[in-house]
């Protein structure tokens, strides 16, 4: 980085976990008369966490901050509290810090039980940070599940009309997937132990993974991959996502799409690819196929959506499909841009969901056919919507462009190497569809003749906190779009060493 942090912050990684936790408890305590101050408490804690996560970017040597303490040691089992941040996780930690704070800002007007609302956001941050920083499978799994419960309550307390159904579907779907993943974790941990003490730390399992046979790798890759991929999500196990998104409050959707879906792809890279290279080879074709399916199906489904938020949800499926094909290339560039796309989509989907949420709030409906010609009435909202859509469809100069460019480039290399260059056509079809549904949606909702189907007297433009949150996210999209190396710089080294261990350069 161009600027090195001149001092060390002791226990930085633990702070990133503890601050939101303390914040959640403190916010929860702001009940009754004091509940209008809940947002300030939540804002302060998530703000400090964000500052720390930004400072992490300027740390010259991340290894200094590794923390490792024994936790559970009993009856032949050893689990530890290990936190690390490396080239793969640093952007995710940064993204979590930023988006949690911005979604707190965005929701500043929340007046229905705000102390619960903001406490849930902070509780979610604990789990998210934990997933990205954990370097012990037990801690990783615990954190993975910790993210579920606040989200469940977020949807079922603050969601839309079908919130009960959506919340329970989200909970059961992703919990079943995590249980499958847990079996996979059992297999790798106990397999790596080779009869000795079963050590759950990433390091010990990686050391023991040399003994994995290729059949074992293939089987276990399947288990773990399923567990992670449902979270991404993959078609046909995606149906929880549109429901959860449509019903969740805006802040919930932002975190769900922005950071939580990335847990899935993060897990695939961190566990499946790092640990099971032969399994990855065996599953490569399937991964490519699944990625293409998600990419095309997601984009195709977008065209049919009437609800703006549901459309954005399906576009998430499509964009996560791009992450899938990119990492399925198993190449240096592929992994590099898969991570970059995770980061880019995190920022862009945050804008999209904020815009969709604001449309519902400020105009009164998100149904595209009911909208029309509103750009004159709500110019700021329309401008942000345009910006978000353009960023998402890959306008050059914005962060999404570099991500998609890199992905198509790496996929092109892969198709050449397997002599099936026509596969690249799917990418192009998806790009075309994406541009199509976004522009069409924009045209129908904001431009053209002013609608007569809704009551126009109550609509209002974005409030100041909403503008601040959206503006900041858009600024980041532009910043990383103009200067992608700022983010890519972190990933490069990690990606090339991983590609080396996968046997493809």
């Amino acid at each position: 980085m161009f600027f090195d942090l001149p001092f060390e912050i002791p226990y930085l990684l633990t702070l990133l976990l503890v601050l939101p936790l303390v914040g959640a408890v403190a916010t929860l305590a702001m009940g009754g008369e004091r509940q209008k101050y809940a947002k300030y408490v939540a804002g302060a804690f998530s703000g400090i966490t964000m500052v720390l996560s930004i400072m992490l970017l300027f740390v010259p040597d991340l290894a200094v901050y590794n923390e490792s303490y024994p936790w559970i040691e009993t009856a032949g089992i050893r689990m530890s509290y290990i936190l690390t941040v490396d080239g793969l996780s640093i952007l995710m930690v940064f993204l979590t810090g930023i988006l949690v704070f911005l979604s707190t800002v965005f929701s500043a007007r929340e007046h229905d039980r705000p102390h619960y609302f903001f406490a849930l956001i902070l509780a979610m941050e604990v789990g998210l940070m934990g997933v990205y920083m954990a370097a012990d499978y037990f801690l990783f799994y615990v954190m993975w599940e910790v993210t579920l419960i606040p989200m469940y309550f977020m949807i079922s307390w603050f969601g839309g009309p079908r919130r009960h159904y959506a919340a329970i579907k989200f909970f059961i779907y992703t919990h079943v997937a995590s249980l499958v993943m847990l079996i996979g974790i059992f297999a790798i941990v106990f397999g790596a132990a080779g009869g000795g003490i079963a050590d759950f730390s990433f390091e010990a399992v990686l050391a023991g993974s040399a003994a994995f046979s290729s059949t074992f790798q293939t089987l276990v890759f399947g288990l773990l991959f399923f567990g992670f991929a449902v979270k991404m999500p993959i078609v046909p196990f995606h149906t929880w996502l549109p429901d959860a998104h449509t019903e969740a409050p805006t802040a919930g959707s932002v975190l769900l799409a922005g950071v939580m879906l990335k847990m899935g792809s993060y897990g695939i890279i961190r566990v499946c690819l790092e640990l099971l290279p032969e399994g990855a080879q065996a599953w490569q074709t399937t991964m490519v196929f699944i990625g293409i399916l998600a990419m095309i199906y997601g984009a195709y489904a977008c065209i049919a959506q009437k609800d703006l938020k549901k459309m954005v949800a399906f576009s998430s499926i499509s964009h996560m499909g791009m992450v899938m094909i990119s990492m399925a290339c198993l190449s240096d560039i592929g992994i590099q841009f898969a991570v970059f796309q995770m980061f880019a989509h995190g920022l862009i989907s945050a804008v999209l969901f904020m815009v969709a949420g604001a449309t519902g709030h400020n105009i009164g409906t998100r149904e595209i056919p009911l909208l029309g010609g509103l750009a004159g009435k709500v110019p700021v909202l329309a401008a942000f919507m345009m910006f978000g859509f353009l960023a998402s469809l890959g306008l050059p100069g914005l962060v999404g462009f570099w991500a998609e460019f890199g992905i198509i480039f790496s996929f092109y290399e892969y198709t050449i190497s397997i002599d099936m260059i026509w596969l690249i056509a799917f990418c192009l079809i998806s790009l075309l569809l994406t541009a199509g549904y976004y522009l069409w949606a924009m045209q129908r909702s904001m431009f053209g003749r002013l609608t007569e189907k809704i009551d126009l007297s109550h609509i209002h433009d974005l409030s100041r906190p909403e503008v601040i949150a959206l503006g900041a996210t858009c600024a980041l999209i532009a910043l990383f779009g103009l200067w992608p190396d700022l983010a890519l710089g972190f990933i490069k080294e990690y990606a090339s060493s991983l590609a080396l261990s996968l046997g493809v350069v």
Partner: protein
Amino acid sequence: MDSSIVTSLYGEFAPLAPMIILMIAALLMPAVYYATKLRDAVTLVAVAAIALSMFFNILMMIDGYQGDYVGVFVYDAFAGVMILLFQIVALLTAMVSLSSSETTRAHYGAFNSLLLAATVGMMFVATANDLITIFLGVELVSISSYALVAMKRKDPRAAEAAVKYVIIGGLSTALTVYGLSMLYGVTGTTNIPEIAAALSTQDFSWAFGIALITMIAGYGFKIAAVPFHMWAPDVYEGAATPVSMFLGTGSKKVGFVALFKIFIVIFVAASTTAAFATEEVQYIFAIIAAITMTLGNVVAISQNNIKRMLAYSSIAQAGYILIVMAVMSEYALASGMFHMFTHVFMKGGAFLVVGALISVGIGEKISDYRGLAKRAPFIAFAMLLFLFALAGIPPLAGFTSKLFLFSSAIYDGGLGGGVMTQWIWLAFIAVLNSAISLFYYTRVVKAMLIEKGETTERIKVPKTFTAAISICVVFVILLGIYPQLIMDFCADAASALFGI
């Protein structure tokens, strides 16, 4: 302080020390009640006796005390851990019986007396080293429990439950005695280590096979394993809730202790010879385990009465613990014992919540729990923790214990065997069952925390219930993040039992 206090006080009876205290207290109970006519005094004496007995037991456990009384009772690490479990159950039950609206008012002395007697019976089984002692202990528990169930008078459901329990219990006893006598016939002794020694020189005989089958069936009734489970939901529903809790978390474990004692000891001694039919017995248990957990969880989904739902979930939990009998490894036994411990706090806690709410006039239907979070925030929060722990959501106790237990189907605890493939299917079924169970637990969570109730009037739960529920909350969290607190003892206990 160490166990020398116990040995100097009790001399050669030291291994029986925890039991003697409770036996005396049990005999004193009616006298205390007739002398004072105060329910509080009775509870105080009972709780004090259990606490003292628990104190002695913990001293002995920490010290690693070992001893036997005339070779019939053996106090070792295994006995210590199980006695502690029974003491906790008894303590919680005695505490809440005081303020429960369901427990009898008239014969309160007798109620506590029976409770303590049943606890003594449980400890009997935990220390037993002889078939006769196991049998006597189990009978002491059973007969006391029949009376405890029947004591909720004026409720026809309780009467039905008691009759059902007596009949099924009698059948179970008959089967067990039959099995035990066959075993005696085959080996010529009732002492468990001697049985093991005798079997290791024999070939498999049909008489021995029948003994095994009848013992599995007999104790299968006690632990409510499918297909011997039918009595459990009716009895748990009919009995006073503190008694249901006592049965579900305590008396059920007696069956497990008896199974562990008889089968594992014989298994270890005789696994090298043909006499025991090792593989077959393991497969029988594995199939029973798979069916029990699946049926328990699936049927629980359709229950609208919380006590019945908890009863079926108890059946499912028994299925999980039966994994121990299929795998028969030291690590599995330690994990199973640890799961029994966490089960006491999770399931016990859930029953306590139900009992507390019945005491303030809230029904047993899931729909009665609507809007509970507004009316009794702490109780609703505690119930949320218990149910999520039962479903195995980290970082609660149920997750950690299930993680140990399910992993024991593929991992031998670091003995050098690597990954075992034989029981992977069982681990799969167990994990899938965990997912099913989340479905019905969230129904209660949804009613309590998400749905709106008809009233938002605050509920004041009796203090002893709040205290007992708080104990459970603390341990549900503590054992989740610091399992070695109990797991270390369980590991010692398992190696003690396997070491015989």
